[in-house]
């Protein structure tokens, strides 16, 4: 039986490593240019994570504008056109600016340390793939200040909203998405080459930690669908500015085809945002249950199955476009099939904890919240998959509740769990546990006040992306907004904890940090030296 969580490297190798660490300490460049020119996977991981955090706060501020406007029925704070820009750019920033870069940052920090590699395989490309991102988001945010405002057609930029009915800032939107796509693709190529070519001797495929496995599969999804997104935005660009008719019926095109192409990208994209989360949870649960992960091989196969199935379910986003019944049936059943491998994963996490010697450190709290709340999001997803009822739920707050449960309490909670789990390894100090627990409990309560009532207003018919609503939704919307403000403020606690950690406040930690943690990254010194595994460890 393979026990991926219990790999040990040779003691002699570790000693070598400590020596080389001291030797290299003097060569770390200082100042701003260290960060601009760096090719070190740890530096780039840090850059990605900080960038994602800043974008998380920027996108969160936009969500606050949305919730402030929806605090009461009627229009009081912002114009509808600005409201639409906020919903659009909030979505784009959270998807492409917060969740995806955060996962890439974690991949940069952790994959080389987990597989015993000295760095990523393509360090210069790694530098590029990060440094084009700030430009992409500067362009996107800059477009908000153009005459007529930035993109206001929803993050899904359906044609003809993004072609016929958009303003000239659409060109900036298209270019920024192109740059984000190129960045993600370069990051994905780097992950694949690193995992294929740089594993330490003895690190066979089925010994790789699950975070590495889920990222490998995610990277393949990225190179498969990000180019399709690039194609879709290119078609929008040429339709709008160069007279093509991909999505214009008058010229022989078809607006529904936009949705097919977009969701062919869009559905694998949602798994791009959740598979690394599955990997993180699969690292954390065994540590604090003090048992090896239950069903390692089935976790790998379940991840691969989810990735493959994600290519044949896209039209479940389009049940109300007038598809024939047999196609709706196909997409309904294919979608429901995904709950089988996902169920395998949830089962395995629960089985890992079963009769484990559990303790409830902060990363474990987030991981447990992830399992419960992500499952709620998964169940509302199953409800949405049922074609006949989707006609009622389509484009209501029920959908908003669904995808925020899987993305906020799913992806983002997993990222927070990952930060709390690995930050002592990165800084060599334990974070402020009291504040971190405050962050967890405030986030847990407020996020449910924020998103749970959305199920009810959605079922009652409140449409999404509209700045006003009927009077009967007023009470629930006040609760939702209060939950939203509380959740937003709770993240400032997180910011405080992270800043304290980066300033190396707190108690020094051991190399293993958590007494149940196993894997190569827990065998190197804390904080992780600038250069690790220059001599590959031997994995037994």
């Amino acid at each position, binding site marked *: 039986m393979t026990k991926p969580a219990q790999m040990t490297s040779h003691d002699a190798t570790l000693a070598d490593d400590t020596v080389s660490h001291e030797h290299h300490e003097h060569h770390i460049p200082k100042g701003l240019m260290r960060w601009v020119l760096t090719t070190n996977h740890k530096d780039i991981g840090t850059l990605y994570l900080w960038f994602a955090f800043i974008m998380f706060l920027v996108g969160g501020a936009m969500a606050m504008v949305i919730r402030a406007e929806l605090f009461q029925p009627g229009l009081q704070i912002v114009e509808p056109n600005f409201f639409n820009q906020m919903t659009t750019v909030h979505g784009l920033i959270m998807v492409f600016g917060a969740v995806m870069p955060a996962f890439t940052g974690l991949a940069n920090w952790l994959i080389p340390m987990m597989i015993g590699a000295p760095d990523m395989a393509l360090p210069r490309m790694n530098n590029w793939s990060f440094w084009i991102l700030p430009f992409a988001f500067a362009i996107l945010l800059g477009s908000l200040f153009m005459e007529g405002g930035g993109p206001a057609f929803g993050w899904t930029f359906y044609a003809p909203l993004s072609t016929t009915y958009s303003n000239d800032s659409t060109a900036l939107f298209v270019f920024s998405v192109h740059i984000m796509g190129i960045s993600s693709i370069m990051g994905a190529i780097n992950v694949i080459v690193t995992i294929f070519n740089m594993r330490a001797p003895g690190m066979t495929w089925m010994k790789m930690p699950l975070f590495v496995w889920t990222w490998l599969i995610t990277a393949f999804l990225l190179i498969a669908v990000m180019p399709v997104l690039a194609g879709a935005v290119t078609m929008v660009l040429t339709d709008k500015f160069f007279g093509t008719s991909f999505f214009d019926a*008058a010229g022989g095109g078809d607006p529904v085809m936009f949705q097919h192409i977009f969701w062919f990208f869009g559905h694998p994209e949602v798994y791009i945002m959740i598979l690394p989360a599955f990997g993180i949870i699969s690292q954390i649960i065994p540590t604090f249950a003090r048992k090896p992960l239950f069903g390692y091989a089935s976790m790998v196969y379940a991840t691969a199955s989810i990735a493959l199935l994600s290519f044949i379910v896209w039209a479940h986003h389009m049940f109300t476009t007038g598809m024939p019944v047999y196609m709706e049936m196909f997409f309904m059943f294919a979608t429901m099939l995904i709950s089988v491998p996902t169920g395998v994963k949830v089962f395995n996490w629960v089985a890992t904890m079963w009769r484990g010697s559990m303790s409830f450190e902060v990363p474990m709290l987030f991981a447990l919240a992830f399992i419960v709340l992500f499952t709620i999001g998964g169940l509302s997803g199953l409800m949405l998959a049922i074609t006949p009822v989707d006609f009622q739920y389509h484009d209501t707050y029920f959908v908003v509740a669904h995808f925020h449960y899987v993305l906020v309490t799913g992806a983002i909670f997993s990222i927070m769990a990952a930060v709390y789990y690995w930050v002592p390894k990165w800084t060599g100090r334990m974070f402020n546990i009291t504040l971190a627990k405050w962050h967890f409990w405030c986030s847990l309560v407020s996020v449910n006040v924020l998103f749970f009532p959305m199920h009810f207003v959605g079922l009652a018919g409140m449409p999404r992306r509209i700045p006003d609503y009927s009077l009967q939704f007023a009470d629930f919307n006040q609760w939702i907004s209060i939950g939203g403000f509380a959740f937003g403020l709770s993240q400032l606690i997180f910011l405080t904890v992270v800043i304290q950690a980066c300033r190396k406040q707190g108690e020094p930690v051991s190399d293993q940090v958590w007494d149940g943690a196993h894997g190569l990254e827990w065998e190197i010194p804390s904080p992780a030296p600038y250069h690790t595994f220059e001599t590959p460890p031997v994995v037994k």
Partner: protein
Amino acid sequence: MASGVTNNTMVIRLVVIVFGMFGFGFALVPLYDVFCDVTGINGKTANTAAVYQPSTIDKSRTITVEFLTRTHTGMPWEFQAKTKRIKVHPGELNTVQFYVRNPMRTDYVAQAIPSVSPGQAALYLNKTECFCFNQQPLSAGGEALMPMSFYVDPQLPEDITFFTVQYTLFDVTARAATMDVNDNPYLQRSGG
């Protein structure tokens, strides 16, 4: 544990996949049309004339065909089906008329786009002549009576007894700027 393939080779292969998938995004456009043509699920009819072969007319079945007209947002023409609804036998050739008028002071070029519901019926609707095959110019104030001749394929599935053909008129003046506005074969009265 190297895979036996150098980093450079692997990068080249992955970049090929990336460009391949970029191309695939564009290949989805014709694939989508072909798929819809074959299965008829999009309700699109052929945009070239069918040739009518007088064959057996199936008098035992009567199909009701309904014609709907609408103009796309921003298209100012009046557009009406002279025949709102017609009962036909499969295999029988019929002609219906559509009336258009350009009430504006400028010339316009229009393109009609058909949509059949249920979509499957589109496969069995054969048009021998249709104003929707071409762009239709009309000068300011002009009006025209535009014919559409069709027959229903006797292979039409038994469960379809009624279907709707909807034409949406789009303003394509901007992209057809060089067209002669009096060059309309269906013209009744030229404006101006």
